[in-house]
């Protein structure tokens, strides 16, 4: 097709899906935080980077393996997120979105600057865990085992998050609290604590994506800064605050980007923004968003 053998195309589609998995996990966290807290969390990229760095610290100084880091890093960074929410973000809920955006953007710059100063810009190597080394020859491509693991794991995480928020009682409390916090509080539910934990959860998702990314990319102070802008575009295309929307858009845009890398690689860093512009012009609330 278009001068490209169908086998090669299959490979590229699969790779796009894998990259989409990262977009989906990160935009999911952003969507949860925006949907429930009304905060545009610009520190998300820095928190993703912190997740990768915690994994690196654990391996380097604590001898904790990848699997341990997969559990510990989201907890550590989630706790860090909770501290941020309690000490800073909660003062901004009543104000315009812009204030939250500025605060989180400033925090991201500070965190990334500190890490760059300490660790340089080339990053630190993180090995692929022994159980996931090697790969399978699928006939049309060589699929590294680790990439296969990324796609399966992130799908499970995305769908679980979606299920918890859209299909469980806890999720219904959360959604109700965003619509009308006073009423929900009157029913005896501790809304501020729920919001704090939600932010911690969203941040934990970012850290989890960071741990997943560590063996593929360098553990690099700027890994999140490069990614966060794309992820915001994904969220805008999907519709701010829409959870299922951000998952589907994440995976779809990964594929679109992957195909661009084959047909017109020079544009692969821009194609998502072109799509964002088109979507904003035609459907300002995003593909899955509700107009209020």
């Amino acid at each position, binding site marked *: 097709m278009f001068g490209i053998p169908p086998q090669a195309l299959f490979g590229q589609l699969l790779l796009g899906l894998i990259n989409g998995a990262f977009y989906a996990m990160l935009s999911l966290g952003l969507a949860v935080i925006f949907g429930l807290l009304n905060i545009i969390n610009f520190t998300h990229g820095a928190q993703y980077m912190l997740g990768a760095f915690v994994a690196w610290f654990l391996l380097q100084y604590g001898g904790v393996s990848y699997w341990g880091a997969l559990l510990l890093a989201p907890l550590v960074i989630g706790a860090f997120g909770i501290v941020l929410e309690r000490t800073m973000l909660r003062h901004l809920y009543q104000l315009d979105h812009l204030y939250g955006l500025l605060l989180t953007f400033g925090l991201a710059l500070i965190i990334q600057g500190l890490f760059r100063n300490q660790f340089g810009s080339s990053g630190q190597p993180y090995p692929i865990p022994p159980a996931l080394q090697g790969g399978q020859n699928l006939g049309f491509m060589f699929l590294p085992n680790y990439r296969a693991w990324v796609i399966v794991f992130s799908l499970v995480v995305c769908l679980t998050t979606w299920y918890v928020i859209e299909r469980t009682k806890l999720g219904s409390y959360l959604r109700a609290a965003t619509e009308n916090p006073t009423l929900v509080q009157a029913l005896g539910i501790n809304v501020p604590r729920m919001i704090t934990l939600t932010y911690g959860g969203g941040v934990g998702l970012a850290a989890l994506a960071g741990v997943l990314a560590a063996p593929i990319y360098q553990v690099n102070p700027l890994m999140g800064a490069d990614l966060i802008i794309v992820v915001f575009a994904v969220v805008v295309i999907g519709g701010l605050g829409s959870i299922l929307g951000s998952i589907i858009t994440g995976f779809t845009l990964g594929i679109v980007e992957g195909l661009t*890398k*084959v047909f017109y*690689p*020079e544009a*692969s860093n821009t194609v998502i923004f072109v799509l964002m512009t088109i979507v904003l012009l035609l459907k300002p609330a995003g593909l899955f968003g509700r107009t209020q």
Partner: protein
Amino acid sequence: MRTQLLCIATAVLALAAGSAVAQISGNVVKIGVLNDQSSLYADITGQGSVVAARMAVEDFGGKVAGVPVEVVFADHQNKPDVGTSLARQWLERDGVDVIVDVPTSSVALAVNEVVRQLNGVLLNSGAASADLTGKACSPNTVHWTYDTWALANGTGKAVVQSGGDTWFFLTSDYAFGHALERDVSNVVKASGGKVLGAVRHPLNSADFSSFLLQAQGSKAKIIGLANAGGDTINSIKQAAEFGIGTGGQKLAGLLVFVTDVHALGLQAAQGLQLTEAFYWDLNDQTRAWSKRFAEKHGGKMPSMVQAGVYGAVLHYLKAVDQLKSDGDGKAVVAKMQEIPTNDPLFGQGTIRIDGRTIHPMYLFEVKAPHASKGPWDYYQLLHTIPAAEAFRPLDQGECPLVKQ
């Protein structure tokens, strides 16, 4: 009235003549290090280049022609527009006399024009494009450390000679990548090899899997990485993940710095052949200098770009000292070309009329983890390319200054 005017005119002339005697502008020689302080090339250039420039000033005695020397720096963010406006501001307003380093060929080529126009001096160490001493050569520019032709001539030739005769390029999509791909392609073809194709990726990409898959599909024996810094690190790392080495294809890192090898670790980088103009462990002088550098730079060893900043600044100060003047950029560069270069890092050499500094280049192979004695012990010297063969012959560069 007429005599009055004459008096004023004489006074003005006298003043002008007076200022012509004190020829160090602003009574300070100001060196501006312009490079990437925050992104993918910051470890190769960045603060390390500032440290190297300061060391050159220190080793020269802190003063030149009786006036103090000052070092300032700025981040051009790898953007030509940011680079040119900083260069213009420095030269026109802030009294900077010489701009140093300037990695990222697209920025370097743009700054090159500003410096020519304002008659400043550009000592380039960080940028690779051989066009800086080719079509874009300038009487105000010295290209100190390396260039794409020298890299192609070193690594490219060695790889073809060891049997890697079919190539596919992974090219960074801007001036540098294009120049490197062009120069290596020429070497490959001249040595009887074939170029099967290329894919161009945007600068500062994170994921290379798609490009690597295309390179795999080309069935070329050699995948040439015409990129640098963080892009090269990620390409090499992900190539290992996709089993490129085990599939019979080999990577050729066309521009790999010692800081990249440090970031990758020997496990991933071992066996790579690469060309550099400098390595800290070449001889007693380079070891002594690099040890001093590392003490001032958080224990990190210098890259060849940072070493080049030292050599170029030292030579610049020598020229200004002899001229007793820093205002006329063309005159300073002419003086730099007139006196032979000599420093502990690059040895003795010359600067050609096209601005190219001539010194030996070295072909290294990255050691296997068990062969390395400790941190930063990464290279084994395969071959020294003598100065006379290391750079593009003067008549092949299409530099307009040469024809005159």
